[in-house]
């Protein structure tokens, strides 16, 4: 037995001698591996893991990538970037090397920079949340890491609509979360059997697990918990007729302030509202303060004397998914099919 152990140790030692860490003249990042020769044999392959066993190396599928040469190097580009802090094995010309792309000291961990609505109170039939991240987040299986908790800190099952491909903004930083609609809609099976996800006058929290990673596979700085309480369900359509609009001063770029009748959904607001004059769109910056229910529009150029039109698409939603034309779940027969209700609504504001 002692001999066997000795032979095993010698074998491992031998393999460690044969299989080396990559020498300094090899250049590698998560995006490529540069080998200082233009001649690599047909045995070339890169494998996941530090594989000591020759037989196992033969049977492990090679990482998919492209090989090309420049004047003095062979360059391997993997189909997807190499992971950080993960061992790999390189085999070529009957040599075996191990390498690992270390996490950069410049890598700043992923953080949650905002959760919207950011108010402490929301209607019990809230439909949507947004989570904003400091950098692109890993969208793969993201719903495994986000959940709503009840006031005892217990996860609420079936609270988030699990989309195969989550709704993530193009920059990869803003995630939209839909509350399970089957539970929010009155009289649907899930609503009748499980009730709505949130009940009025209760405390809840949105919890983002520390297992969530960024797009490079690095974990989030820490878990995040956002607490909120619920008010009664909102079953009233937003009404722009009740908005209070500030006056405009000519030859200034002072913001146009609109005080809204209720909290609006940030995502739909950005697309649904525009300001024009004589049919021409006014460029500027739109901001929404959900705590104050206030829209602020700062024009790129000074206001001019005359009349401006605030155009609001009927699809503008409040937090419960009610839009200007209809409630999220309206009573059958309520006249939303009328074209007049599904039209853009206007407010005018004069500039003196």
């Amino acid at each position: 037995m002692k001999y066997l152990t000795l032979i095993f140790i010698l074998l491992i030692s031998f393999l460690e001698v044969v299989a080396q860490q990559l020498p300094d003249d090899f250049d590698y990042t998560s995006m490529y591996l540069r080998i200082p020769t233009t001649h690599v044999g047909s045995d070339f392959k890169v494998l996941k893991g530090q594989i000591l066993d020759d037989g196992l190396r033969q049977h492990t599928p090679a990482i998919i990538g492209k090989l090309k040469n420049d004047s003095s190097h062979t360059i391997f580009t993997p189909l997807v970037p190499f992971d950080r802090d993960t061992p790999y094995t390189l085999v070529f010309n009957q040599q075996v090397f191990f390498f690992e792309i270390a996490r950069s000291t410049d890598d700043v961990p992923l953080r949650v920079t905002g959760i919207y609505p950011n108010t402490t109170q929301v209607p019990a039939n809230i439909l949507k949340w947004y989570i904003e991240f400091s950098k692109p987040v890993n969208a793969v299986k993201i719903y495994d890491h986000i959940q709503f908790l009840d006031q005892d800190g217990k996860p609420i099952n079936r609270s988030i609509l699990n989309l195969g491909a989550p709704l993530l903004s193009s920059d990869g930083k803003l995630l939209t979360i839909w509350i399970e609609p089957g539970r929010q809609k009155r009289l649907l099976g899930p609503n009748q059997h499980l009730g709505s996800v949130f009940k009025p006058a209760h405390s809840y929290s949105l919890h983002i697990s520390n297992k969530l990673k960024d797009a490079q596979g690095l974990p989030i700085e820490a878990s995040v918990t956002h607490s909120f309480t619920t008010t009664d369900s909102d079953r009233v359509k937003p009404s722009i007729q009740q908005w209070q609009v500030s006056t405009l001063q000519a030859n200034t770029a002072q913001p146009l302030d609109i005080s809204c009748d209720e909290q609006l959904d940030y995502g739909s607001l950005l697309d649904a509202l525009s300001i024009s004059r004589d049919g021409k769109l006014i460029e500027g910056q739109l901001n929404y303060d959900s705590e104050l229910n206030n829209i602020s529009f700062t024009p790129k150029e000074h206001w001019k004397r005359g009349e401006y039109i605030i155009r609001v698409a009927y699809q503008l939603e409040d937090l419960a998914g009610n839009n200007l034309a209809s409630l999220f779940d309206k009573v059958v027969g309520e006249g939303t099919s009328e074209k007049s209700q599904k039209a853009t609504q206007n407010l005018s504001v004069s500039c003196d």
Partner: protein
Amino acid sequence: MKQLMSLLFLSILTSSILMASELTEDFITGNPEIQSIHAMTFGPESILFIGDSEAAQVVAVDLSKQEKAVNDERAITDMEEMLGNLLGTTSDQFQVIDLAVDPANENVYIAVNHSSGKSMLFLYNNNTLEALPIDEVNYSKEALPNAVSVEAEDRRGNSLRKWAISDLRYANGTVMVSGLSNAEFASTFRAIAFPFNESETQSSLEIYHAAHGKYETHSPIKTFIPLTINNKHQILASYTCTPLVVFPMDDLKKSVHTKGRTVAELGNWNTPLDIIEMEKDGERYILMANSNRAVMKIKVSDIENFGDSLSEKVMERAGTAGIDFVNLPFVNVQQLDKLNESTFVMIQRQADGVLALKTSNNRWL
């Protein structure tokens, strides 16, 4: 007579060749700049339609030159292990997003998304998953407009709005796309004539459904299938909020607001994920994969005979209502497609946690 038959055969052959060239004659070779794959389906002549939410486009890729795949068996015992080795990463860094079978040769294609944002297309061949290039293909594509108003389209610097494709299918010269926006909770369903033609406008349809005759709501469609029901081209669609509805394809007119006929509610804790149609002994069946229920089998004739919409509360079984269905012994099936007339292929998360590619046949029908 023999000459006449030969002439007839030649004429049929010529017309089929002409038809083939008609579908792909406007295709070009190059990079369609696919930024993401969210859904895919095959049309005729090995044309793969890819729903690319990120670039807001549908891309038709000609895969007719792809040879028939050769595998020892139509199964992968552990897809995540295989993909993990091929991509050099761990299973929390990628996700199998869709499965599509080319009916012309039974080739099985799989779309995979990686945490870096890269989407990849694989062919199951030589007992492994072979990555196919999607940046050098023979293709045609069509943009999907994504805005509620012209003004919104004009506004620059707005990257918030998103329209994610949830499913797409091809039937009768039309590519149909369902999706979900992060701005409005509506079920816009788009129909695009194929071959793509810029001068031809796309049509969109808003579908809503009624809950027990009292409330009616919009909802995004999760998955759907074009289906002949009562000799009419119809769509069987499943909402994200569980109801299964039917609506006629004739309703696909721009800005029409139509009510889908609700034929079933498929139970709590459940979202239908994929639908296919199979046939056995002259009877047509729908097979439906679900997030929290076994694969369901529904007779198309039951849908045809279910005259009413679910207008009031009916007797329920475990929170389900409407047409009858039978649970098949396949749970946690995430993707489903028809392999041939008697066999279907599926991707299943097994009880041991392993993600496997499997086939089964119509003995279950």
